[in-house]
């Protein structure tokens, strides 16, 4: 017993020592401060990682993806929480921008009031960006949310304490408190599907191919093809989060 206690003390000593070393390794937890000169560029290592492209030129705003997502991931349909949602942007003659997403776009969108005044309009589907430098995993006090080796950010439903700090930290509003499980929840890129070789529910439900998902770094991957040939953009590059979701045709008014 005494020995045990002593060992425990040693482990305390070890912990204190480790605490000292933390100062040295602190950079590990601030990757954006050390690793990247251009924070918006994906890091070199791509093999075995997933990629997601949203083509805003194609989205027709039918809301099938939102519906499919809620069904697949068992998020209550009647609650204002979404793992993915669709926004409509309309710009009129006076350059007024109007953004809307009635119930996340799950039932589509109503016609606008004065259609003839609209000069530019389009839909933008949103989902978790599975950021490489994810602010949400960084702030989780208990290590309940993390990035898997293949680059997907998940929430451990058994460890989440429900403090909502990650919800605050996400610049994209992609996280929410799950009304049933009472833990933080978010898009997992249908981790249970992609790990079985299927595609995500939203990609599968999209009638027009506005969402493309696949591995990156493999030759015939559709995502890779777009990423290497098209001009893509990411949301909120200034946040330095390095999202893995790339957008085609992103307008400057998109928030």
């Amino acid at each position: 017993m005494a020995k045990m206690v002593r060992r425990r003390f040693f482990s305390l000593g070890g912990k204190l020592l480790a605490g000292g070393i933390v100062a040295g390794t602190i950079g590990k937890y601030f990757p954006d401060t050390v690793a990247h000169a251009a924070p918006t560029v994906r890091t070199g290592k791509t093999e075995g990682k997933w990629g997601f492209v949203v083509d805003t030129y194609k989205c027709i705003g039918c809301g099938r993806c939102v519906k499919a997502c809620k069904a697949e991931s068992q998020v209550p349909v009647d609650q204002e929480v979404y793992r993915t949602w669709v926004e409509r942007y309309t710009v009129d003659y006076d350059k007024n921008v109007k953004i809307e997403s009635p119930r996340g776009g799950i039932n589509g969108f109503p016609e606008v009031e004065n259609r003839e005044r609209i000069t530019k309009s389009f839909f933008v589907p949103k989902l978790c960006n599975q950021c490489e430098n994810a602010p949400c995993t960084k702030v989780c006090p208990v290590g309940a949310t993390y990035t898997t080796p293949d680059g997907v950010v998940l929430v451990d439903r058994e460890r989440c304490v429900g403090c909502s700090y990650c919800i605050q930290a996400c610049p994209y509003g992609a996280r929410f408190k799950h009304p049933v499980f009472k833990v933080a929840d978010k898009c997992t890129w249908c981790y249970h599907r992609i790990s079985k070789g299927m595609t995500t529910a939203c990609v599968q439900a999209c009638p027009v191919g506005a969402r493309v998902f696949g591995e990156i770094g493999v030759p015939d991957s559709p995502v890779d093809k777009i990423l290497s040939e098209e001009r893509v953009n990411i949301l909120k590059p200034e946040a330095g989060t390095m999202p893995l979701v790339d957008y085609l045709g992103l307008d400057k008014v998109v928030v």
Partner: protein
Amino acid sequence: MNGYIYPNEANVVWTVMIVIYPYITGLVAGAFIISALYHVFNQKVFKPVSKLALVSALSLLLVAPIPLLLHLSQPLRAFNIMLTPNPSSAMAGFGYIYSFYLMIVLLEIWFIYRKNIVTMAEKSAGLSKIGYGLLSLGAKDLSPGTLAMDNRIINTLAVIGIPAAFGLHGYVGFIFGGIKANPWWSSPLMPVIFIASAVVSGTALLILVYGIGSRLRKREPDHQCMTALNKYLWIFLIVAVSLEALEIVNAGYQAKSYWPAVYGLLTQQIPLSFFGIQLLLGGLVPLILLPAARLKSFAREWQQRLTMIAAGLIVVGVFAMRWNVVIGGQLLSKTGMGYSGYVVPLLGREGLLMAVVVLILPIILFSVLSQIFPPWPKDEAAISEQIEVSKSRPELRSGTVG
């Protein structure tokens, strides 16, 4: 709700409980700083409130985790924060920083009251004899050598306590200041502002507790002490208000992309609680009232009264400041194009009623704790003379104290 907010932002997730938490811990820090001024910086004038400060700090500190637990949607897992604290999370520090701080306060109280405890354990009978006996941990020695040692320990603890208090507040501020997703929070000034306003609110609360407590006990508060508290509070307030103003002025002057959204927040969403309560009532008015209260032309009684009014305003103002940070920051949508809404529900775990209960709890706790650890000096009238006599008598609460 107006403008466009992300669909997931419809529910404000950090509710009034998260307003109360930093508010309560803030009050702790201030009380603690005053006690440190007495023990470390030898500000003898604070003697009448040095114990009071500690006991009220303890009653607040014990309540501080309650709003957090009420807010967690998985409160039973709260201990995870001690088990697997994430080193990259500002919030993960809570468990350890709080425990450390609590330990310091408990130790300080124990050492300060040890003489008291031991005498009580010897003189009283029945339950309280057993209770005090246990509290004394059997260390019943009151020889001058041991007492001198106690004093050294108390001073050391008070010295450690200052960085601990700053650490606790710096970290609470950083929880907000480190969130780059929220332009109203994200600022390196945030931890400093939190420390400053914590000290301000705590000092103000101490003035109120001392003032009101003395009145309730039909005693006159020690005037020198009140004046000194008034002066310190004024200086702390100048620092706090100018930092808060600086923050806004800087953001407005730089006018970065998010400024219109923040401006809209301040002028349309929370103008009353920001300009009206936080800055005017809780800042500028006390800034004038406090020095005014020291004017010789006022009678003693009125000087104290004005000081207490100013302190009351500050305590309210700092609550508004916490509200404006916590709730205001969430009203501001991450889209920068709209604002969500928040109304405190009356009932429920995070409702108004519960909030009132949480805010009253420290008062109840204080009245219980002050039975065990008598915080009031034995006779205020004689306090000023006592200051010179550095060795004070054991302040026993015999049956006739009242």
